[in-house]
Every structure is written in C-alpha cells, then in structure tokens.
C-alpha cells in the first residue's frame, strides 16, 4: 500500500517538475548567452498553450498512427516512472526490472519514429532516420550498462541496484551512464534528430496543438527519468538523506547539463554515431572488470 502511495506521489512530482526544470535550464542558457531569458514557468505556459490550440492534420498522414504515436511515447515514459522512484523511495519493483525500463525508453523512441514516418513529411522522415540511428547506438550502450549491472548485482531487479555497491566497475559504470544519459536526453550536440536550422524539428515538424505538447512533454519526462535513475544508483537508503540528496541532485544535474549544452555546437549524425561507437569500448571495459568482481 505504501508503495502505491509512493508511486502516485512520484508520478505527480515528475509530471509537475519536468517542465519546470526545463524552464530553469532555459533561464540558465539565456544567462550564458547574456540574455534576460523567459520566466522559469515559461515551459509550463508553452505546454498549456499548446493544449488549447487546434491541431492541423497533414494531408498525407496515416491518421491513426500519427495521432496515437505521441500518446504511446508519453505513456511509455510515464509507465517507466512506476519502476523508478523519484522523490519518495518505493516503486512497483515486483512488476518490472531494469530491462523493462530500457525497453520502455526504446519504445518511446520507436513511437516518435512511427509518428514521424506516418506524417508523410520528408523532413520528418530524415529526422526519424536520425532518431533511429541514434536510438540503436544508445541501445547498445545501455546494453553494456545493463549487462554490467546484472553481473555486479547478480540480479536485474531495480531494488537490488539502489544504491549500487561502491566498486571500481560501478564508478566507471556511473560515469559512463552520465554520458549516455546526456546523449539520450537529446541535448546539443546530440539533438541531431530535431536540428531546427537543418531539418526543422525533424520528427515533430507536422505535429501541432496537443500532439506537439505531448511530444515535448515526453522529452522533458524522459530527461527527469534518466536523472532519477542515476540518483537512485548513488543515493543512500536512509529516507531523509535520500530525499535531501534527491532534491539537490534533480536540480543540480539538469543545470550542469544545460551549462554544457550552452557551450556546444551540433554534431552531424555520422560523427555522433562514430563518437558513440568509441564510447562503447568503455562499456566493454566496465563489463569485463565487473566480471572479475572489482
């Protein structure tokens, strides 16, 4: 029963918090660029505004897929929150392990991909291609992490992993996870699938109104989910310290990532894929030493 209350609180927290922290990130980026920047509630205003606006249906779209894709993506990320605790410890661990979480994240990428392809817009197709190339490599990197975690904990259950034991391999793994998290949250230089000046928001080009709001919301939720997963790996089990640590972490990490983002230019898709392939060497290394039990 406690777990269910915790899950409800956690999901509500994530829903409220994800757009708000994006507003903070925008403010920080604006300051780095010596702009005043919008108020931090701006992302919330944008989402609410989009929900009120009318939707425009592209002529060539496969309507059913086009409409359902944003909801599929949104729900798959939302369901992940059932297994990953945010502000309160406690989740439905019994129903899902880390593989489910990884699959749900991949599913949200696939949903965007399907929606983009069904829109019939050439820019969306190029964007979807890029999204998929990135997702495939991301999956490989995540596979290394999951593999190493399984070896480390002799289990795939999330509650056994929170927090990770301090070992050489787990530290390498966490550093590696941070990089993958940065890539998966579609930040510059890895916002290649959207790339506004190149392919005009790519997969989302034809979306408008509440569908666009869902797409944006999904990305914000995904970012907070990945951040929470990281914090769960490192935070202690003591409820008080965990909560304090979580609140600090969930503010500091996005802010740091936003600062990094403001100092970057965009990569090209082949450069990004090459970069991630090189990264996978670290993944193999972490996995091998975790096999030795270090």
């Amino acid at each position, binding site marked *: 029963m406690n777990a269910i209350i915790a899950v409800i609180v956690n999901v509500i927290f994530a829903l409220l918090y994800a757009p708000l922290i994006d507003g903070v990130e925008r403010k920080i980026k604006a300051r780095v660029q010596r702009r005043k920047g919008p108020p931090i509630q701006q992302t919330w205003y944008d989402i609410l505004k989009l929900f009120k606006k009318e939707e425009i249906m592209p002529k060539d779209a496969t309507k059913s897929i086009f409409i359902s894709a944003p909801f599929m993506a949104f729900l798959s990320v939302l369901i992940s929150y059932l297994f990953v605790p945010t502000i309160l410890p406690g989740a439905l661990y019994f129903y899902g392990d880390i593989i489910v979480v990884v699959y749900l994240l991949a599913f949200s990428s696939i949903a965007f991909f399907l929606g983009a392809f069904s829109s019939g817009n050439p820019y969306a197709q190029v964007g979807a291609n890029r999204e998929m190339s990135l997702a495939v490599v991301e999956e490989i990197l995540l596979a290394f992490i999951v593999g190493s975690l399984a070896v480390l904990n002799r289990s795939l259950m999330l509650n056994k992993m929170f927090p990770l034991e301090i070992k050489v391999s787990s530290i390498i793994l966490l550093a590696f996870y941070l990089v993958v998290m940065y890539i998966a949250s579609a930040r510059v230089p890895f916002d290649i699938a959207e790339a506004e*000046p190149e*392919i005009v928001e790519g997969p989302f080009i034809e979306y408008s109104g509440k569908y666009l709001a869902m797409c944006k919301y999904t990305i914000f939720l995904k970012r907070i989910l990945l951040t929470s997963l990281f914090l769960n790996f490192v935070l202690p089990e003591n409820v008080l310290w965990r909560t304090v640590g979580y609140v600090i972490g969930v503010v500091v990490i996005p802010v740091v990532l936003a600062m990094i983002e403001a100092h*970057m230019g965009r990569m090209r898709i*082949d450069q990004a894929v090459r970069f991630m392939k090189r990264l996978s060497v670290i993944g193999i290394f972490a996995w091998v030493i975790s096999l030795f039990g270090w």
Partner: protein
Amino acid sequence: MQDIKRVIEENNGKIVVEHDYFLLVEVSREHVRKLARALFEAGAYYSTGVGSDERPKNGFFAMYHILNHEESKKYIVLKVETPEHDLRIPSITPEIEGANWAEREAHDVLGIVFEGHPEPERLILPDDWPEGVYPLRKDFKYNEKVKPVRKEEKFVEREDALVLPLGPFHPTLHEPEYFEIYVDGETIVGARYKGFFVHRGLEKLAEGRLTIHQIPFVAERICGICGYTHMICYCQAVENAIGLEVPERAEYIRTLLLEIERIHSHILWFGVVYHLLGFDTGFMHAWRIREKVMDSAEILTGNRKTYGMSLVGGVRRDIDEDKKEKTLKALREVSQEMKNLFDDVLAMKEILNRIEDVGILPKDRARSIGVVGPVARGSGINTDVRKDHPYAAYKYLDFKVPVYNGCDVLSRYLVRADEIFESIYLIEQVLDQMPGGDIMVERFEVPEFSVGVGATEAPRGEDVHFVITHRGSKVYRWRPRAPTYNNLPSVPVMLEGEHLADAPAIIGSIDPCFSCTDHVTIVDDSTGKILFRGSLEDAIRRLKR
C-alpha cells in the same frame, strides 16, 4: 596592360573608350565568342552582363559583357550590337560558364536570342509572364500592367531519391528562395535552385522616373545589410561615366562607412553560421558584439543602417573629432571581443568538424563560374576589388587580402574572420589620415550616352553597377549586380555528395543575400524556374551506374 590590349586587338575588338577604370570594347557578333574565350584565358573572369535597348539612339540592341581582368586593373566591357530585325547574338556561355545567368536575363527582359546557349530557359521572369513581352524595352512603359498567363508548375519527382524542399520558407534561409534537394538517406545527390521570387521594378523605375540624384537612395535599399556599398557603387559608376573627381575627404568618409558596413555584415554572418551549427551561445554573443558596430554607424551617420550619406560627387555629411574617438573606442572593444570569440570557437572540435572539408568548390570551377569575394578567396583566388581596382581611399591605405586554399566552408569562415580585423585596421588608418577640405562637388555636367562601370568590394564580394547616362540628369540604363548573383550558381556544386546536415552551413557559407540578387529584376510575383538541370541529370546518371 599592353598584353590585354594586344589580346583584344588580335581578336578583332575595337577599343572605343579607354578609362582608368575600364575599357569599352566594340566587337562584332562573329568575333565575340573568340574574344571572350581569349580574355578568359588571359585571366579575366565573367563579372556580369547587361542588355540594353538602344533603338532611340541608333536602332540597335546592345549586349555588354563585363569582364574583370585583375592583372591589368581594368574592367573590360565588350559591347555587341545587333539590329532589331535580327535579334541574335552568339552565346558566350559555352566558353565561360559564368555568362549563363546574365544572358538568360538579357533574353528575359529584352528578347535578345543567344545562339548556342546550353539552357535557354526563363530565369527571372515569372512563369505566368506572357511570352514576347519584354519589360526593359524602351517602348514598354514603366507603369504598364500585363495580364498573367497561367502555367502549370513543374515539380520533378525522382524515384531513386527523396525530394526535400528547402524553402521558399525555411529557418535556414530567412528569405524566400527555394532549393530542391535530392537526398539518398543523408547524402545529397542533386540540387535544384529556384530563385527570383522577390522582385521590384528598380531598373525600370530608375530609367523611367528617377533622376541621377534620386537613384543612390533607391540603390541603398537594394540590400538590407550592405546597402551602402550599392549606393557607393552606383555613385562611382556615374562619376566614372561623367569623369568626375570626388574630393579626397569624401573618399575617406566613404571608405570609413564601407568598412563599418563590412564589419557588421561579417559579424552578422558569424552569428548566423553559429546558429546553423547549433551553437546558439556563439550566435547571441556575435550579435551582441555587433551592436557596438551598429552604434558606431549611428554615431557617424545618424542611422544604424541605410546611412543615406552619399550622392554623386561626394558625401552629404561631415564627421567631426568627437565621433572619431567614440568610433575608435567601440572598435577596439569589438576587436578584442571578436578575437576571444574566435579563439573559443576554434577550440570547439565539433564545430570545426562540421565545416572542415565540407562544401568543396575547386579553384578552376570557381573561376569559370566567376565567384567573388570571400567565396573566391576561400578557394585560393586572390581577388579583391579594393586592391585590383582601387576606389575611394583604398589607394592611400595599407591592408592585406586574406586568401585561403582549403576551398571549403572553413576557408570562407577564416577569410571573413581575418577581414574583420583588416577592416578595423583600415578604419584606424582612415580616421588617422583623413584630410580636410570639401566633401562634395556640387556642379557637374551630365553628357548623353556616356558609359560608366562602378565596382566596390561588398562584404559578400564584388558589386558591379553599370550605368549609361541620359540627358536631363537621368540614366538611360542602370544595372546593379549584387555579389550573390555570381556566388549562387556555385552552391549546387558545393552541395553535391555532401550530407544533408551540412546543407544549411554550405548555403550559408556564401553569405547569400537573395533579395539583393532578385532586386535587379522587374516583376511582382513569380514561381521561378528550373536551373541546374545538367548537374541533376549527371547525378542521376552517376547513381544508376
């Protein structure tokens, strides 16, 4: 100098006017092609071409091919005449690729047929413009209206590649132009350009109802970024046509403002390129620094843009000591801040990877298309109107012309970066050396049918204005040619075989100014026309192989 004259005379050209700035050469229809070829081989490139209806004078139509021969510091104007009943001139496009657009434009507006032209298609008139109506002929009234004819728009579908429309409205372009890009996965296999959407009746308006002193202000409004260079270019064309000497102080003031304009235009370009490469922080900082240049322009002229400072014969307002100090202070800050920004960006690997070895334009191809400005200098061509045809005060000043041999986007980037600092150095010299005296020649006579060529180095490259004067302080023919007119045909060459992700940076690398290019035409509304079909077909053939 003697060499080029010998080449002209050996190929049956007759030098009729020998000016410090240009040679007016009359040549018959039979010999024009051979002469053009010989000049090209002697090192000249095709700058622009102007058609003119001279029936009121002598019953002939004339085509002026303007070639730039940097070595002898002269523009060579080839004049070919043709009678009204036999409107045919051999095309020189098979000899010099760069003549393509100019000849098609002359056909559109005057109806001169260029025999042997490889793509005799409509260029600047819209598809719904009726056949056989030629707007720049003298018997066509400037306020005449024509009835549009409906035509089906052609859209070329391809089975082997995905068609990506880049424009007419696209966040990369900021102006209504249309690139149709054919992609296979992420690789560009062909590109098609449709342009000339934004037309004003500038030339016809100038010939029809403006006087010599009104046109500078129209000319300045050709471009929203580098308008002053058009104004000066026009004034110089008229001054060359009537043989007018401008006071030295006026020359210095012109130089000062031209360089201010170059700095702000280049910084604007850097901002845009950083944005295209996803580096928005650089974009914001570049434009923040640019504000200081805009403020200096405001201090010096009263306006941030569109200075309204020049007339034929000089400049309209003087510059006092107080303004000098403020300008120098602002420019020192700009210099320091731009240096920091460039250093920071050059340390960013992901940005360099995006522009190095991307958008290759080989030197020989660049020369035959006749690209100008930073695009040419980035392909290893040492050309700069300020050095080759010194105008205003550049003959008294010391400056370097940066040339890079990379032929890629990075080279064009570096050329512009260096030019900002050269421009600041130039302004320091100008403010230091500026002599006193008059700033304007008020009285002068305007002879009839006198030909003048004016050229300036605009931020984007060589800007050429061609003027034929008329009685009553009017112009008989005025043709402005913006640098993008020459640079744009090189874009499909740069795009082929590149990644789609690089297309915006490549198109951006020529610093395109579409409206400048379009303004030289006469119509209100258009659907454009197929260009570069040749390169497209080559691409298909290559794919099938």
